């Protein structure tokens, strides 16, 4: 009996327990509300159905969530410019591919060049944020607010206020399927990003450094870590990953729509980090938790779409979820619960004593 109980406790205290429970809850709700949610069929040799759709659509979010997790862990704040940086990267990429034309049927530059240029552009955005946060000690959200508002304007300037279309098959591959390969390319890219990030964080000491800077920046500096550099690096990585996400997103719609690429995705990325059981105040983090969180958010979005909620109205529900999560995470609330529990046990003890 007691071993069974401790086993249960072990399970619930596991880091990925809560994120997985959330994901499971969403899936259960989805199966009840949307008929045929879990069924997968084959169409033209590729799997088709809601689960595939969720995993496919979540790819950009997964990529963003990786960067957002690192930024949150190191600086205790969030990068709210990721959506705008996605738009900038997409604009740069499409502008190079089209060579300045509005709509093209052939590429004017190799895709790899455009991809790298997009990464450089988003890396510059990330470095700008990192400079403000790490070097000048500005609160992360205020610093990233600058690019959050200016980013889409810059993207508009790059594309000259127009939507650049790239009607070329070889470019669309990155947002759909590559030949007969049954897994969508965005999913493949997301998996590669997660594996690389996981390998770097686990095989080098970077993950440990990020956590220690997030827990106590001054103490980390005193033991010899370059906390400014580590914070800067997380923002740089976050920017570059936003560029990758922007590349995938623009390939999906084979165009650079500065107003709509990555719209409201910063909110989703922050939600994914919070749902993954990471404290938004920084410190210890779990990359896998954030990835699960990202899939949970995408499942939630799909369910809401299934319930005929329009895209404009989605933020209302997501905002409520965010508030609930941060309230549950807040130390004041946790203390309140602990006090209530103590009261109950002490009451029980008094009763036991009377008997």
């Amino acid at each position, binding site marked *: 009996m007691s071993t069974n109980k401790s086993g249960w406790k072990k399970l619930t205290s596991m880091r990925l327990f809560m994120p997985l429970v959330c994901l499971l809850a969403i899936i259960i709700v989805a199966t009840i509300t949307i008929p045929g949610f879990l069924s997968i069929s084959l169409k033209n040799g590729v799997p088709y159905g809601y689960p595939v759709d969720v995993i496919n659509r979540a790819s950009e979010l997964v990529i963003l969530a990786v960067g957002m997790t690192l930024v949150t862990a190191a600086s205790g704040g969030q990068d709210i410019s990721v959506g705008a940086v996605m738009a900038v990267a997409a604009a740069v990429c499409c502008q190079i591919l089209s060579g300045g034309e509005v709509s093209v049927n052939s590429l004017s530059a190799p895709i790899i060049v455009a991809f790298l240029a997009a990464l450089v552009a988003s890396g510059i955005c990330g470095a700008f944020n990192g400079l403000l946060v790490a070097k000048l000690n*500005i*609160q992360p959200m205020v610093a990233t607010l600058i*690019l959050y508002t200016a980013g889409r304007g810059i993207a508009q300037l790059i594309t000259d*206020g127009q939507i650049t279309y790239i009607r070329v098959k070889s470019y669309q591959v990155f947002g759909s399927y590559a030949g007969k390969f049954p897994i969508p390319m965005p999913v493949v890219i997301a998996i590669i990003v997660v594996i690389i990030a996981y390998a770097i964080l686990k095989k080098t000491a970077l993950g440990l450094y990020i956590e220690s800077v997030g827990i106590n920046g001054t103490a980390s500096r005193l033991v010899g870590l370059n906390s400014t550099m580590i914070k800067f690096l997380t923002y740089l990585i976050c920017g570059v990953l936003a560029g990758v996400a922007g590349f995938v997103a623009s390939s999906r719609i084979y165009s650079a729509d500065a107003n709509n690429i990555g719209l409201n995705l910063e909110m989703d990325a922050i939600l994914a980090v919070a749902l993954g059981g990471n404290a938004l105040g920084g410190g210890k983090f779990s990359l896998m938790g954030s990835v699960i969180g990202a899939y949970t958010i995408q499942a939630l979005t799909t369910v809401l779409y299934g319930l005929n909620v*329009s895209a404009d109205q989605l*933020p209302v529900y997501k905002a409520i979820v965010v508030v609930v999560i941060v309230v549950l995470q807040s*130390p004041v609330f946790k203390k309140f619960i602990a006090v209530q529990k103590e009261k109950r046990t002490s009451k029980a003890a008094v009763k036991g004593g009377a008997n």
Partner: protein
Amino acid sequence: MKAKVSGTKKKINGTTFLLMITILLFVVMYAAGMIVFNDKGFAKPQMFLNLFISNAGLLVIAMGETIVMITAGIDISVGSVTALVCMVAANQMENHGASAYTALLMALVIGLLFGLIQGFLVSYLEIQPFIVTLAGMFFGRGMTSIISTDMISIKNATFMAWAKYKIYMPFGSYSKRGKFLPAYIYPTVIIAIIVLIVIMIIMKYTKFGRSVYAIGGNEQSALMMGLNVKKTKMCAYLLDGFLAGLGGFLFCMNSCAGFVEQAKGLEMDAISSAVIGGTLLSGGVGTPFGTLFGVLIKGTISSLITTQGTLSSWWVRIVLSALLCFFIVLQSVFASLKKKN
């Protein structure tokens, strides 16, 4: 005696210096506009009053933002609250036959509700203000689109009478035929200026105002001094919410419509106005008077760009962001200089 003199000198070096830069920047920008665009009527008194007319709502909202930022908090939900207020007012007056008075009341109630909930989460549950108001921002925008995704223009007679009532000034300009055209303002300007004066008095002379500065300067010491930190923060967010509601209504009187994309990025305008006006992001420092100049600079940038004509409206945001960035860097340089001293 000598110590006193050096004391005042030090004060000028710090925050007052930032405010002086701001005022100088405004004067230089406006004077440059008057010289370059003189043929387009930039030098007319009406042009100056237009700064107030088109930014009356922003001025009121920026006042609330300043108070919250002095407590070392922030509110990025104000743009969405404005959109929601405009939409509710337009929807109530046009589709449900409400009077303009009811619409005004509802605007204020919406603002107060946002202030109440956000204030509670920030001050009593100690959640980061940015996360709370980010959620508020998305919530407000989403609610606006739940009410209506179409644009609703306001045709209510009382409302339009309020919005278009011209108050003539004793000065003005002369038309080409020599006819005297008096400059005018709308009632929104009067309300905004009254709000400005009231907030200036509150921040300078009331217990609440001084507590706000004390908390922003150092929360720990304010607590030790026996100030009720949580209650003061709560009141600050409540006041900010109320001003966002009122400012939203003034904004609505300027645009006379409600639509989902309205006032997008207004939170950025309000924050940058406060920062340019000398409010420190780390809290404890800032004045409503400085914020007024922040708002005027924002207004000058946008009227310069619209008068110029060929630049895209995106440039307003980009220039403003660059200016915000410049002032943030300046603040941080001043802060590090202070530390060294």
